[in-house]
């Protein structure tokens, strides 16, 4: 079997680096993360930061998003896959982690989630009956951004802190570097605070 799985690339020297190795089915190291909310809440940036953190930790990542033509207000779904192995299909198929910041997004995506999927919800959301997950965290993500950090638009960074506290994807240091490399100059302190607030939302 292992012989048959050899990948050959002919007359494509330039593409050698992209050859995807056959997955080792025994290792379940693949994290499939789906974050949802409303356009403008920054869920895409949150997945970009998680992808960056994955790279900081030496892992393979694939980040993508789906959204409507409008920049603000439409439903938004962003995804990141973090894996020890090279990634084939780049979209999330069976989320191992799911977050919703709006009721609309939660109602839309909850039916597709498995029992083993870890779920993080803003605590203003009502849990729909169709949500099967055995592990649901509720945290005041949006409220904390306003009241503790002092800026509603830092909710996505609060979420990033909470997500890593739940999943232990990367070290605090790696997460810090990932956040800092993607926030605008002059907002470092604010976003560091948001990150700390987010981490503390989840009780260890």
């Amino acid at each position: 079997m292992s012989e048959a799985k050899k990948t050959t690339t002919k007359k494509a020297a330039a593409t050698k680096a992209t050859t995807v190795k056959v997955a080792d089915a025994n290792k379940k190291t693949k994290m499939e993360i789906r974050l949802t909310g409303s356009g403008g809440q920054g869920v895409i940036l949150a997945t970009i930061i998680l992808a960056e953190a994955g790279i900081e930790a030496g892992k393979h990542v694939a980040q993508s998003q789906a959204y409507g033509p409008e920049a603000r207000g439409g439903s938004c779904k962003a995804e990141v896959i973090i894996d020890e192995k090279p990634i084939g299909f780049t979209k999330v198929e069976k989320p191992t982690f799911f977050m919703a910041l709006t009721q609309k997004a939660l109602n839309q995506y909850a039916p597709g989630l498995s029992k083993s999927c870890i779920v993080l919800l803003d605590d203003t959301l009502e849990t729909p009956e169709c949500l099967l997950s055995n592990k649901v965290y509720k945290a005041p993500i949006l409220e904390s951004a306003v009241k503790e950090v002092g800026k509603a638009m830092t909710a996505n960074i609060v979420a990033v802190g909470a997500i890593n506290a739940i999943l232990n994807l990367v070290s605090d240091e790696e997460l810090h570097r990932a956040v800092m490399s993607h926030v605008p100059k002059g907002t470092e302190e604010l976003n560091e605070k948001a990150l700390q607030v987010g981490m503390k939302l989840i009780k260890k």
Partner: protein
Amino acid sequence: MGKTVLMQGNEAVVEGAIAAGMRFYAGYPITPSTEIAEQSAVRLPQVGGKFIQMEDEISSMAATIGASAAGVKAMTASSGPGFSLKQENLGYACITEIPCVVVDVQRSGPSTGLPTSPSQADVMQAKWGTHGDHPVIALSPSSVRETYDLIIRAFNLSEKYRTPVIFLMDEIVGHLREGIEIPDPKDIEIINRPVKKFAKQNGLPYHVEEGEWVPTMLPFGKGQRYHITGLAHSESGFPTNDNATAGKLVRRLIDKVEKNLDDIVTYEEVMCEDADVAVVCFGGTARAAQSAIEQAREKGIKAGMFRPITVWPFPGKQLEALSKKVKRIVVAEHNDGQMLLEVQRVVKNNCKVDFVGKIDGSVLTPPVILSKIEEE
């Protein structure tokens, strides 16, 4: 190789293009290609290049050709609706033999369709979108890393064969972020157009030396006046109605690609050595196909993947050889069967050819391809 950086497919287009020597970009933004314009606007001034947002896609294509005629490596990018508008001037670049790279990040159509949804339905537009017999080189990447390498190759082929090269991306790869290691510039092969030393060549701008496929090129506006026209022309560059001259020109335009397939065609075979079923796909679809054939192997089905990297010219000789070894081919693409036509033309009755496609803007997933693999 340096540090691994997180990069989007569309950003890799720009970074790779700049590494290849692109110093001019003209475009009109359109989802899902907009990041290419954005990034070009940021990066080109930093390397002494020029970015210009034109009033539309037609003028963008014209400006790109004009810049290249003046001696600067130039690129434009769009999506399906804009790619349609570029077609007339694309033909002009073909017959005037002005190198340029045209990126088409495909989205669902027809017309403005689904702006943010993936598609691969411009396969035949890339080949036949502009009228008349003409050469086409179209490259399609399936990862961010490959995007970087392949856009460099697009420029190299364009310069070498003096022809527009189409970079046929899709939303899947264009909007995908992955970690990539940027290669050291000294490890990158760069090909520049053959530049004319006019005095030696009787002042004929389209004179082709014995044993060469293309005329050497003098940057327009650099001292020597000459004529560039979309009409059939002689070696002088001036229009002609002479059938023999026109026929010779079009024959050479086609042959410079068709007679150099060994130099141009690239493809990838994955697990094809012992395969009973081969999935034929390109671009972003290959990522789903890769997972599907791995899952098939786990179930004991000998599945492989054949991926044209040059969608045009199509790797027909190589696929024909494979079709004599496998029992069945499954063509998977985000359209209603475009590359399928080329596969059927090549494979004939060598093996059964099945198809799985998508036309609703959603993504072809591994289970959908797997169930097609499992059908027999």
